């Protein structure tokens, strides 16, 4: 009866905030909106509002899926902390997914996709995915690099910087990672902090 699972999906790793409540892969309600560096103030009220509108309680959710970056954007921690808390305190299974995979899933046609998240000073966190029907495959590992170089290296890839994630694509692809120990969940930063880089 896998299709009847209720799922809560959250991604706050970019300046767009994504929250969706699903039954199977069917959206009951979703929210995808650009924030003003204020996911901390808006994520929980959005979660509350969406549950109210579909007349459900978070206790009814069977699976939690959270975008864990990569990125250095402060927002990524907001979603991770909230979903980590739900998973621990309500004892629900938690899955993590690359926020770049979520971005790539918004691409509606087929072919190479290059989702990217701004990392300032001309740099980006990015990956190269192949999209075939409902399936995403990671072609080149996600990394932090100059966006200009990436655009040169992969001229054929469709560059995606925003777009509402598609849960059916995510569920059909091999991108979800089941969390064994909820306490250990943390964003993927891909980069050390500046202080650590300066020290070594």
């Amino acid at each position, binding site marked *: 009866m896998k299709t009847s699972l209720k799922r809560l999906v959250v991604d706050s790793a970019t300046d767009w905030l994504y929250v969706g409540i699903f039954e199977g892969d069917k959206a009951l309600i979703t929210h995808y909106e650009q924030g003003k560096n204020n996911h901390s103030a*808006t994520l*929980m*009220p959005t979660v509350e509002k969406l549950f109210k509108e579909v007349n459900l309680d978070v206790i009814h959710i069977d699976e939690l899926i959270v975008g864990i970056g990569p990125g250095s954007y*402060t927002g990524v921690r907001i979603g991770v902390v909230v979903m980590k*808390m739900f998973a*621990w305190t309500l004892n629900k299974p938690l899955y993590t997914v690359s926020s770049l995979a979520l971005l790539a899933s918004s691409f509606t046609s087929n072919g190479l996709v290059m989702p990217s998240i701004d990392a300032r000073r001309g740099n980006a966190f990015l990956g190269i995915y192949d999209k075939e029907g409902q399936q995403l495959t990671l072609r080149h590992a996600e990394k932090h690099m100059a966006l200009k170089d990436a655009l040169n290296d992969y001229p054929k890839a469709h560059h995606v910087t925003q777009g509402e994630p598609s849960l059916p694509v995510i569920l059909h692809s091999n991108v979800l990672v089941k969390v064994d120990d909820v*306490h250990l969940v943390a964003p993927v930063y891909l980069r050390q*902090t500046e202080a650590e880089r300066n020290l070594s």
Partner: protein
Amino acid sequence: MIVLSVESSCDETSVAISKDGKHVLSNVVLSQISLHQAFGGVVPEIASREHVKGITVVFEQAIKEAQLHVDDIDLIAVTKGPGLIGSLLVGINAAKAFAFAHHIPLIGVHHIAGHIYANQVNDEMVFPLVALVVSGGHTELILMKDHYQFEKLGETQDDAVGEAYDKIARILHLGYPGGPVIDQMAQTGNPTYPMPSINPTGTYDFSYSGLKSHVINTVNTHKMKKEPIQTHNMAASFQQAAVKHLIEQSKKAVTDTGANMFIVAGGVAANQSLRRAVFETFKDIKVTVPAFTYCTDNAAMIGIAGYYQYQQSKKHDDLSLNGASRMDLSSI
């Protein structure tokens, strides 16, 4: 009333459970201090990352140690500021998610109110009272005429006293954090180095930049002349001057306001010389300093303050509660 409280404003991840604003049932503190020592101070981004790693573990341990069930919790209190914004947001969002998951009301608490209410753990406040708040980020005198009424009398015009300690510890190569080390050395030193007296301005404000510069200049002059500094004596000299300034301004505030009680709050409240001086100075009124466990950042103090805040206002916050790095105590 059972309060679960969360504190993550700097480099301590803490969750506590307290009862009726008095009894601390558990107070779990996960300190990151060893991680930041290599950098000579708290690195905000590292602090935020560590809070994410530790937050649910600390929740779990606090609930377990208090030996109660989630259903027993009546209120969630969380530090909303002031502090490092990235750190604050981890605790705030963890608290909001927990409150939402279990349908428990939530309130945001001012960090300094927490430090002040750390004095309520084993004692009763009597009013009016004057509170001296001293930490790495704060040097303030607060007047309270009743529970949860804060009036700022004065504050530092430059460095916080704890900040001055850290900077002087750095120039003397004593490591981080500077307060405990200098305090410890001062106990076996003599105040042989002359220090400038900090001019009373007629206000209740503080100033530590003059004293700090004087110590730094003295150390540098000695270095140039290749004369060794007697570190214990320098620590004792600086500490004596620093404490004297705190006591003089506090005395003025207590006299002028006719306070019936004087309390010390914040990390520097653990300072031995300050604790001694306070009890020697205020003999005719009630004086309290928090137990050592409650001097540094901890969630129990936020829970106690949160209890009184809720009793006074009967208001709770909604899920849009957010953090702020700066926040005025008088305006809450």
